[in-house]
């Protein structure tokens, strides 16, 4: 299926939020990568990319965590995460953490070059064939900030969704506007965060879509939390679930 | 105790660290000032002159500026009188004592009261020349001088600018160069003759300070009118 001759060896970087809150996204990612002809491993030594520490100003711990991640993923052709945020942390920020340690910086840059967000990897690297999924749904897509601005993820998920039979994509007025999650921001400045996501959910509701998709669990938990509080029936899912045809389990924040 | 000037410079030089004594620095500054190189120029106004005039006209009109094209200087007083009539304005004009404006055949319009000098609170309509016009953005370039008081550009409700097509240039850079060339005298560098004030005017005065609603005529002229004299006249 892939245009690459020998099968690429890909490591899955699961991300904390998928690991804890939505294992199905991890399995959907596995399926998409395998369907596209990759040999996928899930290194057991992985934990977190360190972004919470990094954005909280705890640089010392960030560097220690980054070293762990670099070591855990050294032996693979590619590393893929179902997240633009964790992907951006590793691809965009790791090299700068080691400005004073040339050897580690080289290793960080090496990982950076092999690190990809899922939809970007499928489209830009594998140039994968259309996915085989089917779903009768009117969906809208939220561009998560890190994926969009650090990794240039914008057209790729839309291109892939375009190949899902039955999916109709309707755009929000401002799909690129932040949902207000912001990591620890959403709890530290909860009221402000809630206000931002309330503008977002109004935009989402205005599309008339019955499903909201995005590529990052943080944004998805935030938007689902607000939509459910508002009593909205809009289903919230990670885009990987739709692309992998794995939409049989309850949507985020729902039980059936 | 050292002066504030010395202390500011000491901090700046400390911030420049090891580069501070690099002899290339003063040379780079002198060179940049002397050659004042142009940075990237947008394509938009890189046009033959006639098209620059058309672009200028389109740009100012989009800013609610009215343009009255005339064949020659002799037509100017009549067209100004028409403008006053159209806007129900008294026939009193405060005019810049500029050679071009003073040479206009005002006497053919005896109803017009012409008064030369700077802007006063009672002045409703001013007539001034401009130094150049910039097609890229529809901008007028005006300067202070012994014959062009700048208060005329801001005090009256209506500002009428008499402009020749040949004064239209493409970009700000070209307009600045024209002024440099004009000011350069054999005994003096252009910069020594640089005027007190250079005004770039792009449309009439406006504000959006109340709820973001655009309103014309905040403190400066409510209306800007250009009488554009054709080349060769």
């Amino acid at each position: 299926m892939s245009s690459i001759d020998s099968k690429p060896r890909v490591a899955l970087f699961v991300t904390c939020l998928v690991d804890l809150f939505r294992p199905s996204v991890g399995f959907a990612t596995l399926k998409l990568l395998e369907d596209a002809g990759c040999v996928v491993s899930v290194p057991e030594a992985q934990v977190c990319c360190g972004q919470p520490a990094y954005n909280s100003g705890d640089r010392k711990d960030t560097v220690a965590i980054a070293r762990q991640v670099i070591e855990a993923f050294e032996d693979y052709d590619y590393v893929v995460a179902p997240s633009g945020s964790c992907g951006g942390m590793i691809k965009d920020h790791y090299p700068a953490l080691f400005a004073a340690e040339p050897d580690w910086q080289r290793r960080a840059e090496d990982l950076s070059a092999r690190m990809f967000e899922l939809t970007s990897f499928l489209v830009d690297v594998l140039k994968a064939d259309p996915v085989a999924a089917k779903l009768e749904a009117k969906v809208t897509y939220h561009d998560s900030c890190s994926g969009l601005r650090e990794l240039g993820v914008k057209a790729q998920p839309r291109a892939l969704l375009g190949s899902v039979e039955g999916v109709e994509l309707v755009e929000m007025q401002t799909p690129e506007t932040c949902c207000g999650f912001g990591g620890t921001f959403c709890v530290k400045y909860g009221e402000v965060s809630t206000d931002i996501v309330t503008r977002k959910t109004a935009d989402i509701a205005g599309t008339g879509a019955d499903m909201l998709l995005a590529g990052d669990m943080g944004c998805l938990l935030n938007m689902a939390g607000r939509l459910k509080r508002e009593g909205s029936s809009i289903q919230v899912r990670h885009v990987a679930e739709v692309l992998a045809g794995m939409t049989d389990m309850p949507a985020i924040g729902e039980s059936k | 105790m050292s002066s504030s000037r010395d202390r500011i410079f000491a901090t700046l030089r400390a911030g420049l660290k090891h580069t501070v004594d690099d002899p290339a620095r003063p040379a780079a500054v002198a060179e940049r000032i002397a050659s004042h190189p142009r940075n990237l120029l947008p394509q938009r106004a890189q046009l033959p002159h006639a098209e620059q005039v058309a672009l200028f006209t389109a740009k100012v009109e989009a800013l609610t500026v009215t343009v009255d094209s005339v064949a020659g200087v002799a037509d100017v007083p009549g067209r100004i009188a028409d403008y006053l009539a159209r806007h129900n304005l008294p026939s009193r004009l405060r005019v810049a004592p500029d050679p071009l404006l003073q040479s206009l055949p005002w006497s053919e319009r005896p109803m017009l009261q012409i008064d030369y000098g700077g802007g006063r609170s009672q002045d409703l309509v001013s007539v001034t020349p401009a130094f150049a016009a910039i097609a890229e953005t529809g901008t007028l370039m005006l300067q202070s001088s012994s014959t062009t008081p700048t208060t005329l550009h801001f005090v009256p409700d209506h500002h009428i600018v008499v402009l020749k097509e040949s004064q239209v240039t493409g970009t700000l850079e070209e307009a600045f160069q024209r002024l440099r060339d004009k000011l350069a005298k054999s005994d003096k560098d252009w910069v020594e003759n640089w005027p007190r004030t250079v005004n770039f005017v792009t449309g009439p005065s406006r504000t959006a300070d109340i709820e973001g609603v655009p309103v014309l005529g905040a403190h400066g002229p409510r209306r800007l009118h250009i009488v554009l004299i054709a080349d060769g006249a």
Partner: protein
Amino acid sequence: MSMEVTAQNFEANAAKALRDPNLRKAMGIISGPMASRRVETARELPEFEALRDEGVKIKNHVLQHIDLYLEKFEQQLTARGGKLHWCRTPREARETVLALCRSRDAKIVTKGKSMVTEEIGLNDFLLEHGITPVETDLGEYIIQLAHEPPSHIIGPALHKTREQIADLFEEHHPDYELNGKKAGTRSTEPQVLVTEARSVLRDTYFRADVGITGANFLIAETGATVIVTNEGNGDLTQSLPKMHIAVSSIEKVIPTLEDLSTILRVLARSATGQEMSCYTTLSCGPKRAEDIDGPEEFHVVLVDNGRSEMLGTALQPLLRCIRCGACMNNCPVYHSVGGHAYGWVYPGPIGAALDPHMIGLETARHLPNASTFCGKCEEVCPMRIPLPDIMRHWRELAHEQQITPPLQRWGIEAWAFAAKHPWLYRLGARVAIAALKLLGKDKGRIASLPLASGWTDGRDFPAPQSADTFMSQYKKRSH
């Protein structure tokens, strides 16, 4: 009028702002039309992105040679008959301006818009010394009447509704007559209100003894200061009185007229979505002997206020800022809380990056934290200032210097400890998600979590899909 620091109360300020219906209406204007006009005019200039790069290059060049360009500026300004006053501190700058005003025996001074004069608290100081400053920019005039600080660097009164403005005008010019008729019930039409402000201020321009403006740029090549405005008030302020004082700051120096031309192309587009602001004026020295009008004296009060210390540090890119306001026009946090919540002169992302340096990290510690790091500010900044990186720099300093509250610090360190010990992390994760799964019961979400009330006050908390993590499920599957 000059700015009292309330940045330390960001949370309370924000809570108040979120409940202010007028502010919310105003923020709709900023996030809607103002932000979209920027996009439209930028689109009409194919070279816009390349011009941003050119602007960055110019400013970076200046910063590598700033001492030399400032010397050149001083030399040229002096040669044209102007006088330069170097001021390290706000106090020094206030006193310099006061002494200049007194030398003219000034009673009334008109003022064009200037953020640096807000920074140095000039208005209150002049008032205390018997001199009446009159703000002439419409927005600044409105908030001066209301005794409020600006809430936005280019739209200072955007948080006021037309009704509030009409009430302020009724209170402050009750005798105002329009076309010979007393106004009576004031119209709330912006056009009518603008006309009223115009005619009330008209006389003041001519009566003022001194005119004070800011300066967007200082041109080393000619010794000129530059103001960029739309209303024309700045020009009336600086051309009618006998003395013109331009209050500016050291980082505003640029080399040449060509560099000015380049930066002007990105400034107005980024600020208001115009191609050019209505009035861009270069002022150079006092009126010449042969001139018909213009001020007899021209002074430039050049304020440092900590800027020189930023050179050669992580904060240096902030010295590229041209004060266009695009970062706040596009900031989701600013759209929620407005400018006053930030509690000092510069709000929004630029304030979050700059204010900790100017008023102290301890006082301003919330500002760099109150960001989602969405990166939109850096995306729109014409000078490509890495605002999120600079905010993160402040977070790092706050963590190091233990300015971050202990609970947050310990929380992140405990979490990081676990992240460095995968077995501990997996154990903790299993306990946590099992508990959350239980709390989610059969609904798939949790309505209230006392330890995360910041989240659950306004949102449900989606429960984990399973009591088992991905890693654990994956392991089971592959064995």
